[in-house]
């Protein structure tokens, strides 16, 4: 269903006017209420009055992940903290978190865009949804939860993991919709077979998959294995969480809800707009958010945008699947991992300043495996098995507690990690998507 026909199917001229109106307001709001933006805009020599239409957006400075890190924890808040009703953090590139806050209106907005997203996937009020994204600080679980309640679905708040329980819930309650990472969906198929369940006969008819990159061939595999429709959801916590864009049942790109999230595509080197339809870095401006409005936030995701009208009737532009990143972030089981975080952990463990490498792999039908390879140094070498095993354990635990993702630690001999120009290659991604 189309949840909000007025906004999602608005003719482009009206849409542009709405966007312009909102852009003017949000620029003014950010300038007035957020010292960070005031400073930034003053330094950039631009005034809220300079923004008269959507094309003037290019006059505004961009906001980066580093800006978010440096303004931690409160400098980016534009609303007083007592009006903030929810805070989420995700792990940042080094020690600090990336923080996002929501006022009551922001939570309503989140529920609204997630309801639109579920509508894109094909959900109808009264359907049952199994939410297998993690609940808590991770925005995946609660985002879907709010949207599903808004639409009037019956929610199974399963949260992530515990595969057997997930499958039992599916089998017992027959939910029509599944929300999880695409690799987890494939993984569940293996487990289902082991439990004697036939994935083809599952109750899931529609999947809303995201939080990690995936390919058309994975889509085909999911659809044929589970006999269900697999659609793509896009979001990032800085903007709102899931619900920034979602594929409709025609599966030709993800409708971005551009009346509230204004998209641009720029050349990451020059910062200039790319030609229409060309690939570049996705930059988003939140047009209505109150707690932390973001102006021209660089997502570091590489996409292209199509502005043609979709068969489904929605006029909102469509972004392509994410084709890459402009930084060295990797996504493992839906969780963002920066090599610098691992470095931070190793430095924190006494006496280790070692060379390390991250290897991500995904075997057929299994979940992502993250292996952290650490070169052993003389300082930490003991000739007792117990001591070395407990060192391994310690590194593993520290990393897991920072990242919230399961890792394997492998100790290797010195100089065995491949170096180029003296520097070790930090990430090896062996996954075939």
């Amino acid at each position, binding site marked *: 269903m189309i949840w909000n026909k007025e906004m999602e199917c608005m003719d482009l001229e009206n849409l542009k006017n709405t966007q312009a109106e909102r852009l003017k307001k949000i620029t003014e709001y950010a300038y007035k209420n957020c010292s960070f933006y005031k400073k930034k805009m003053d330094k950039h020599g631009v005034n809220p009055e300079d923004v008269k239409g959507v094309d003037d957006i290019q006059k505004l400075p961009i906001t980066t992940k580093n800006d978010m890190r440096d303004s931690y*924890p409160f400098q980016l808040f534009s609303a007083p*903290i007592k009006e903030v*009703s929810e*805070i989420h*953090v995700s792990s940042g590139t080094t020690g600090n978190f990336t923080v996002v806050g929501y006022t009551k209106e922001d*939570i309503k907005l989140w529920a609204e865009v997630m309801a639109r997203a579920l509508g894109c996937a094909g959900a109808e009020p009264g359907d049952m949804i199994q939410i297998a994204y993690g609940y808590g600080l991770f925005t995946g679980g609660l985002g879907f939860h709010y949207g599903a309640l808004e639409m*009037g679905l*019956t929610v199974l708040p399963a949260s992530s993991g515990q595969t057997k329980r997930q499958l039992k819930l599916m089998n017992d309650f027959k939910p029509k919709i599944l929300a999880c990472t695409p690799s987890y969906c494939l993984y569940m198929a293996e487990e289902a077979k082991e439990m004697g369940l036939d994935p083809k006969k599952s109750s899931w008819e529609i999947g809303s998959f995201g939080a990690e990159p995936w390919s058309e061939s994975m889509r085909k595999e999911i659809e044929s294995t589970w006999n269900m429709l697999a659609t793509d959801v896009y979001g990032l916590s800085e903007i709102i969480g899931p619900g920034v864009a979602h594929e409709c049942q025609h599966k030709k790109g993800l409708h971005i809800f551009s009346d509230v999230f204004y998209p641009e595509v720029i050349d990451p080197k020059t910062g200039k707009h790319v030609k229409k339809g060309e690939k570049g870095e996705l930059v988003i401006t939140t047009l209505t958010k109150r707690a932390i409005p973001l102006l021209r936030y660089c997502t570091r995701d590489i996409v292209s945008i199509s502005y043609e009208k979709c068969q489904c009737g929605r006029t909102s532009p469509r972004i392509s699947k994410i084709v890459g990143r402009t930084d060295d972030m990797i996504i493992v089981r839906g969780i963002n991992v920066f090599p610098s975080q691992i470095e931070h952990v190793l430095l924190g463990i006494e006496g280790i300043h070692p060379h390390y490498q991250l290897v991500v792999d995904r075997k057929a039908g299994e979940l992502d495996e993250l292996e952290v390879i650490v070169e052993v140094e003389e300082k930490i070498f003991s000739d007792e098995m117990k001591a070395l095993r407990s060192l391994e354990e310690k590194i593993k635990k520290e990393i897991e507690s*920072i990242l919230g993702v399961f890792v394997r630690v492998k100790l290797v001999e010195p100089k065995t990690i491949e170096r180029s120009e003296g520097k070790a290659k930090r990430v090896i991604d062996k996954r075939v998507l």
Partner: protein
Amino acid sequence: MEITYWNKKIETIDRDALKKLQLGKLRKTIDSALKTRFYKPRLKKAGISSGKDIKSLADLENIPFTTKDDLRECYTDGLLSVKLDDVVRLHTSSGTTGIPTVIYHTRHDLDKWTELVARSIIATGSGKKDIFQNMMTYGLFTGGLGLHYGAEKVGMTVIPVGGGNTKRQMQLMKDFKTTVVHITPSYMLHIYSKLEECGFALSDFNLKKAYMGAEPYSENTRKKIEKLFNIEAYNSYGLSEMNGPGVAFECVYKTGMHTWEDAYILEIVEPKTGKALGEEKEGEIVFTTLDRKATPLLRYRTRDLASVYKGLCKCKRTHRRLSRITGRTDDMLIVNGVNVFPSQIEEIIMRIPEVGNNYQVHLEKEGALDKLIVKVEIYSKMFKGDLRELDALKEKIKTELKASIIINPVMELHEPGSLPVFEGKAKRVVDLRTKI
């Protein structure tokens, strides 16, 4: 002391009016229970075919108890009294192997639950200005989402962390100047013991209150926690069958937990005979839901032991106060706030062919937290003499247990015949935890 109320009229209602209110709601609950496959024949047998057959609250005694086993038998929809279309959420209890239990909620049910939690929060003196860090797990477990909705209703700023990850918890407490936490008492003590190691000091925090529940603990531990952190700690009681947290909560006077009696009928019974017990007598708590449309429960035996305090509270709330929970009538274990039945562990272990005939479960304290150690004997007939296979076996049992009981156990492999032999699964559990 300043007393604040969320819903003063209901919270301070006089007892007679409360009883009248209960009676009216009970009749409606009976009517909706009659729509379920489970209660219909049961109530008919007890001579009740409509809510009108209930003349006074005393008639409640004619209704048979509902047990955990009944709930299991009703899985999945034996207790569902509305159309599935009207259900907006459901929670199930743990159990991938054993039969779980399920509670459905309509939007009305969730609103009522949220109100009870909001009342509880306000009763402790918290409000809109507070920064609330919720350290209870989110998802099917009701501890997380239950408080979450109530806290948002009140207008607090919620940080939905969920459980675990101590260092991150502390960092957030510091960075966002958290004033209220929702936590298990043992995790609270654990945080204290890890402060220095994680590079924090109490002066980094702005903590004022802790809502503590999900596991039994003593008054001494409360005092200790209050002194260590220089905060006020409030007892919270709830169980998923009765929605979750927000069933009973302490007010600022901290003399027992006000049970929201407009939403639940509270009885204390002698566990063996089921006979009603008077005030200040310890017995099993029995609840009847009055405000839940999707899954009404009549006289549900909680298996929790407690008593009801005498007299009126200084806060003027007329809802009676429950003592802290003193024990259980069954062999359920509470490990770091998670409910575990020994039978769940046994079922998993005994399914694995490489495991011998004997096993033992040890519960110990590691610092302030519980540690679950599962000791299994290896089975000599299946032993192939390869260390790598033993590594894999250990990992396999660990994963299977984790999947079923949500707790990460410590696995120990033992020689055949080296563990003491006991009959019955409860005896195989050795609880070495000192009571907190």
